[in-house]
């Protein structure tokens, strides 16, 4: 369905531009979770956020999604202030967040149904997305019948079904085994070749961050600040074999080193 427009998108709309300038966030009278945070992502850029637990990565994604307002600074998404529930922005949550009373197919279909797509196109898209995440046989299952990893894959299928222009991913593959994770990493990049989008990707896996991103942001905690930015020079499309090259391994070492220096002793 979107395949035909894919080429046009590549030229005209690689994704939304995101800019954060001096952003701060505190909850109530608590300490600043994020302070003086400035970052710009070009349209179609893939930015990974990595840092110690509790440093504000999820909060950052929620700010960009417009689910919570910043306490200081400015955020712009595609040239406008972030608005909760804006067309083309989708968030993949840290837990799969499926509705237990809807079958897998109905869960994937939910965003399409809510925005009023016709039923025929919806079902075709749901089938394609479930094929993509390797769960075509699970369409009729309820979430409780799936493993944690399968549930996460359904959640990914649900997000991709709307062909987002900006995708915010909060540790989507954290619960998966390494093989599945590698495959889904490759699939995610393949989907992005066809339907480009800007991505913010929170992860605890250095390997995943290096394989997926244009840029890795290493965060320090209390308050959340940018400790280090690492550019990833590899061009897309990236082949699975990239993981075995010395350049790739060197970048993993560099990122791990940067991460170790921000982890509390």
């Amino acid at each position, binding site marked *: 369905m979107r395949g035909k427009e894919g080429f046009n998108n590549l030229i005209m709309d690689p994704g939304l531009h995101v800019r954060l300038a001096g952003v701060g966030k505190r909850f109530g009278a608590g300490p600043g979770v994020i302070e003086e945070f400035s970052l710009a992502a070009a349209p179609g850029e893939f930015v990974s956020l990595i840092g110690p637990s509790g440093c504000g990565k999820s909060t950052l994604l929620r700010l960009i999604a417009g689910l919570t307002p910043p306490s200081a600074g400015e955020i712009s998404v595609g040239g406008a202030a972030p608005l909760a*529930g804006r067309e083309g922005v989708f968030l993949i949550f840290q837990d799969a967040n499926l509705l237990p009373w809807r079958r897998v197919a109905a869960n994937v279909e939910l965003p399409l149904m*809510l925005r009023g797509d016709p039923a025929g196109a919806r079902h075709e898209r749901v089938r394609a997305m479930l094929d993509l995440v390797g769960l075509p046989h699970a369409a009729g299952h309820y979430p409780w019948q799936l493993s944690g990893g399968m549930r996460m894959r359904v959640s990914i299928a649900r997000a991709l079904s709307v062909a987002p222009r900006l995708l915010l991913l909060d540790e989507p593959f954290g619960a998966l085994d390494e093989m599945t994770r590698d495959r889904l990493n490759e699939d995610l990049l393949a989907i992005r070749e066809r339907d480009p989008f800007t991505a913010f990707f929170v992860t605890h896996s250095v390997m995943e961050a290096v394989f997926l991103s244009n840029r890795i942001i290493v965060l320090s905690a209390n308050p959340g600040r940018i400790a280090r930015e690492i550019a990833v020079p590899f061009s897309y499309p990236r082949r699975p074999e990239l993981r075995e090259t010395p350049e790739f391994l060197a970048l993993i070492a560099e990122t791990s080193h940067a991460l170790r220096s921000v982890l509390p002793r």
Partner: protein
Amino acid sequence: MKRATRWLFPLGTGILLLAVWYGAKRLWQIPSFVLPTPGEILAAAWQERRTLVASVLITGRGALLGFVAAVGVGFLLSLVMAFSLRLKQSFYPYILMLQMTPVVILAPIFVLWLGQGLPAIVAVTFMICFFPVVANTTMGFLSADRGWAELFVVCRATRWQEIRYLRIPAAMPYFLTGMKIAGTLAPIGAITGDFLAGTQENGVGGIGFMTIAYFSQLKIPALFATGVTACLLGFLFVGGVSLLHWVLLRRWHDSFIGSRRN
């Protein structure tokens, strides 16, 4: 083996209770106008079957109407209160006040306004069933997971879509719990209702009315039989709600899948 014990244990308890009943009666020489035997109660029930069937229909009708009204009004009111804090604050204290006022006091007022008979009985049943439905369902509407609510925001769902596809399904388990409690209370409400506001036709009224009639005629085994009838009516209501619970939740809710999960 497991299937067999499921039936054997309650059956054994039943036989034991009957033995104690007959034993006590024989041991202390209790006369039948104080404590009839189960056999005598059944015989009386058979003898009075026309009256009892008629009275259970009368009471059942009042119970059902009051129950349905309470469930419907309770559901809608909960929905309204769940989506407007101001409305909740405005209504809730008065709903509580109504719940605190004993039904025995409300019943004469209903009779005053509605006259003796069905309308007053339905009103009493409504009053007794209403609160558990409202309290549980309101809780249900407010208990949808925050992550789900955010998903609906991200999906740009309209208010109505959020209610239809998130709030109502998420509230279902709570709503059905409220309904189950109301189901046990509805027959009690209706019997209380015709005890206090019941009417008769050719000496036949609702179960509550017949209780008074049999007592005044000293038909003690028949009095016990009305108790059995009331009990059966209660089971009918609870069974109905349990069936609905099963139909709506069996596929996804933990209360049914918990045992299947391993």
